């Protein structure tokens, strides 16, 4: 009887996580705890980084088999939403419902700054290819430069699902670091005189324009680039809900309950793809370095195009708003505002920077469509 009891206890211990935990899993658990710390204490994009971090923790629990790849687990079924490309467009629906495209409609030239900031994506693609990544992997890594989480997850899930966890973690971490990464690049590429430029007040935008805008954007972008249709279409649907003013219940749901639920599912299932064998390899280090390169090139591309617009307009455009072309809304716009105010305390660039900022959301979706069209 006692022998049986001891054998049972011995079997339980042998099958427990303590005896089955490998060094790699232990390291990944530590990584998960660090990410949780960054999300909770440092508040690095906590809305997504916290569920991602906890997904990493769950996936690397020894024996539990809770990763996105373990058939039968809850997270395996939640992961279907990413695999089938469902969650990112739904997140875009919520983002569209929360976004005001007024500053963009008032100053359509901002779209060019949004386009210029996507140069970082393609330059990083070049760098990744030269470093030996496959074309699909390079495409998935380079989209980090769009500074758009749902877009990065959408592209990575289609082009390089084995790198999804690393890419998502890198993307959201760098988005949180935008206030640190961007200012030195902005100051390096602009003169004080350029940073002091005060821009004219934006014209008022009518409600009709705001209602027509999402329909036109959906039609034009989807006709040109059908691969971008899921993201751009849902973004514009959310915006149409908001601007039409006749579906306030749907707008509220898209802005709140829907996006919150999808964020939880997306975060956990993305994090749960980061198992030790996929995350702890030299390619992950490359992703982290290339992600930083992508952000830097994107910021530089936007600022340099801003300088071109400054020259062409005779000094009416502040080049700093070009850095907001990376679609980290509204963080990048706030960085433009802050750096502009350092040069000229009475300068308020926030609303001017919101134009390129929301243009970057459209631009990164278009860039994602290009990558998917060319590589798939």
């Amino acid at each position, binding site marked *: 009887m006692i022998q049986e009891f001891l054998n049972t206890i011995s079997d339980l211990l042998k099958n427990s996580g303590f005896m089955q935990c490998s060094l790699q899993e232990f390291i990944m658990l530590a990584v998960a705890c660090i990410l949780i710390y960054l999300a909770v204490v440092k508040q690095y994009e906590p809305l997504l980084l916290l569920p991602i971090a906890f997904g990493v923790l769950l996936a690397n629990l020894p024996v539990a088999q809770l990763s996105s790849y373990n058939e039968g687990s809850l997270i395996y079924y939640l992961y279907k939403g990413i695999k089938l490309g469902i969650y990112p467009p739904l997140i875009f629906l919520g983002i569209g419902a929360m976004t005001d495209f007024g500053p963009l409609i008032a100053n359509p030239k901002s779209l060019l700054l949004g386009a210029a900031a996507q140069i970082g994506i393609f330059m990083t693609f070049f760098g990744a290819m030269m470093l030996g990544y496959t*074309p699909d992997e390079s495409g998935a890594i380079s989209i980090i430069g769009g500074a758009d989480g749902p877009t990065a997850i959408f592209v990575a899930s289609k082009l390089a699902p084995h790198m999804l966890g690393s890419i998502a973690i890198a993307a959201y971490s760098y988005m949180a670091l935008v206030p640190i990464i961007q200012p030195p690049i902005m100051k390096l590429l602009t003169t004080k005189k350029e940073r002091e430029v005060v821009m004219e007040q934006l014209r008022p935008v009518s409600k009709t324009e705001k209602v027509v805008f999402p329909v036109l954007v959906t039609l034009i972008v989807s006709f040109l680039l059908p691969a971008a249709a899921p993201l751009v279409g849902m973004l514009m649907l959310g915006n149409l809900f908001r601007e039409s003013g006749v579906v306030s219940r749907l707008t509220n749901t898209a802005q709140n309950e829907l996006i919150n639920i999808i964020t939880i599912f997306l975060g956990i299932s993305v994090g749960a793809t980061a198992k030790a064998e996929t995350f702890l390899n030299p390619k992950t280090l490359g992703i982290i370095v290339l992600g930083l390169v992508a952000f830097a090139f994107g910021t530089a591309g936007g600022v340099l195009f801003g300088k071109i617009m400054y020259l062409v307009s005779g000094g009416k455009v502040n080049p700093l708003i070009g850095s907001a072309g990376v679609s980290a809304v509204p963080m990048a716009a706030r960085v433009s505002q802050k750096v502009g105010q350092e040069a000229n305390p009475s300068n308020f660039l926030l609303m001017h920077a919101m134009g390129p900022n929301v243009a970057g959301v459209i*631009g990164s979706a278009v860039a994602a469509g290009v990558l998917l069209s060319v590589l798939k």
Partner: protein
Amino acid sequence: MDNLNLALNMIFTGVSVVFLCLVLLVFVIYAMPKVLSVFYQKKINNVAVSDSRTVREENGIELNQSKQIPINQKKECNDELLAVITAAVLACFKPEVRSRIRIASFRRVSDTPPVWNGVSRNEQIASKYD
């Protein structure tokens, strides 16, 4: 070599397509208010015609009250509104500053503006004349 070709091809294709797409959107957005103003002009003309029809009916059998506010009454509403808003803004500032304030334009904002719109506006008002 193939990788290099693909990478260069991607740079040129990607940048070109993104710019093409967004430049097209720029033109469409610039054209949008012009096209919409043509429709609005037609609508105003139709309203003027229906108003005159309403007057004829009024002189006939029944009164049909036009639901359109005449343009001169709209202007009066705007002037009154402007006066109230100006008075409210001036009341927030110190007396020595009030003479330097001029309301250049005003417009109605949407009911659910983004948070940063309000923050920016408040910061602008609070710091401009501190």
